[in-house]
């Protein structure tokens, strides 16, 4: 397998984008990526897109064709593929694109994620279909309820508190002040989080990422081609994916996402690094508890000590391992299928030195994208 680099990135603002349609969104992200790579478009050999539920959110299927069409790539009849793994759809799209280039099948591909949730439907109801629709959602266990079950047990077993959860939200909102693409760019306090109404105890409104509209895109190229296109290629050292039983009740341990453990350990092995070598990370804080558990499952700390890490400020900008410098899902907003690619964009900007205002000094970065309550995990390791 040959080396693969990111040569261009693009991202729309995330949020409740009433003026922008599904088509508007992915074109905006795609153009930005092409401009970043200084490519015309005809160089692209294949297209990958991650989208969870255009069928339910906007009644549109066959997204791959739609995007190829509207981005002018159908003009060249290139292969276009849509992949789905709930909110890990973006991570999946990144991996498929990575494999296409690493294997030698293609030299330059574009991969993106897009979601338009505000046009129709109950956004959380549709996202809750990332769980087991028939046996979890049917009995009323929507996604907040499932993560709340995890949070409650984590608190019971390890002493994590609601304040610890709040610290995650506070950190991410603070980071997003410097991210022009984030949905929420104002700071919040621990008190704000604790006073927000319960959604599913112990998770409160400000413990939950908002589901929003957005699109992002990255262009991948083989090492040889990348060096011709850009002075600042960022290499993908590893891109690993793992699955797990879809429903919480089937998991071996409620407090460990085995998919994250497996995917990250494989990635570390391939990239020949250890968790402590990761210098910046984007993780899947769809709920604050998810970030705490991610610290543990990625190996940044021992199981049960996730709260200690945030309490001691280790994951702040300036800490030992800055996490979610972009603001994460919590402050950027969670544009479901686009999130995995947005995470990649942030890591690339960080490694290039282009993360104005929220820059950290890093040569190695990691992105963790999760589907549902952990039935899919994609871990990507980037380096300069």
């Amino acid at each position, binding site marked *: 397998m040959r080396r693969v680099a990111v040569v261009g990135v693009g991202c729309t603002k995330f949020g409740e984008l009433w003026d922008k349609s599904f088509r508007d969104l992915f074109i905006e992200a795609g153009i930005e990526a092409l401009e970043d790579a200084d490519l015309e478009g005809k160089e692209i050999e294949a297209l990958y897109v991650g989208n969870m539920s255009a069928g339910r959110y906007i009644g549109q299927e066959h997204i791959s064709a739609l995007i190829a069409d509207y981005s002018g790539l159908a003009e060249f009849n290139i292969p276009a593929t849509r992949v789905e793994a709930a909110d890990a759809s973006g991570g999946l799209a990144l991996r498929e694109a990575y494999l296409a280039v690493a294997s030698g099948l293609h030299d330059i591909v574009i991969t993106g994620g897009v979601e338009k949730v505000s046009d129709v439907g109950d956004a*959380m*109801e549709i996202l809750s279909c990332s769980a087991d629709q*028939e*046996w*979890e959602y*049917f*009995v*009323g*266990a*929507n996604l*907040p*309820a*499932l993560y*709340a*079950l*995890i*949070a*409650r*047990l984590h608190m*019971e077993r390890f002493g994590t508190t609601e304040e610890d959860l709040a610290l995650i939200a506070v950190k991410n909102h603070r980071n997003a002040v410097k991210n022009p693409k984030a949905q929420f760019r104002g700071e919040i306090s621990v008190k704000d989080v604790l006073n927000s*109404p*319960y*959604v*599913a*105890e*112990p*998770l409160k409104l400000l413990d939950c990422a908002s589901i929003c509209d957005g699109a992002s895109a990255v262009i991948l190229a083989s090492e040889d081609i990348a060096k011709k296109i850009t002075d600042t290629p960022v290499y993908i050292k590893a891109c690993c994916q793992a699955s797990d*039983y879809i*429903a*919480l*009740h*089937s998991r071996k341990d*409620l407090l460990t996402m085995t998919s994250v453990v497996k995917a990250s350990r494989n990635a570390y092995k391939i990239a020949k690094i250890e968790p402590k070598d990761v210098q910046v990370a984007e993780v899947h804080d769809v709920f604050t508890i998810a970030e705490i558990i991610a610290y543990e499952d990625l190996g940044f700390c021992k199981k049960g000590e996730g709260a200690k890490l945030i309490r001691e400020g280790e994951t702040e900008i300036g800490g030992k391992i800055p996490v979610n410098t972009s603001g994460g899902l919590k402050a950027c907003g969670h544009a479901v299928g686009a999130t995995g690619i947005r995470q990649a964009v942030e890591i690339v900007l960080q490694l290039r030195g282009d993360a104005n205002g929220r820059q950290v000094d890093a040569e190695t970065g990691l992105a963790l994208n999760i589907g549902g309550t952990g039935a899919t995990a994609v871990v990507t390791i980037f380096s300069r």
Partner: protein
Amino acid sequence: MVPRFWRKIKYRYNLIGSYCENCGNYFYPPRNLCPVCRRKGKIKEVPLSGTGRVLSYTVVHQGENEGKPYIIALIELDEGVRLISQLVCNPEDVEIGMRVKSVFRKYGEDGKEGIIYYGTKFVPI
């Protein structure tokens, strides 16, 4: 949704799960294929006891129920198999580890003109 609900009525009205004779594991909801043994597995239907304990729970305030906030619990039945269900109980009285048993209740309906969904919930013993 009618055929889809109907197909599983037997397994919702009563806790009928699966048992693999090869590895001795119980599964609920039922499975056609043992995930541990796959082709080597021998799955048969088995009624579960309906009694167990609460492993974790949450009080859902923003959710599907038209009624009051409801309680979702992860319950481990005495056979060792786990499931997610609603707990009919005062929120203040729920404790991790408490013993519960199954009851027959209404889960909802497909609108005022649609069919009524019945199923199994749990109450404290």
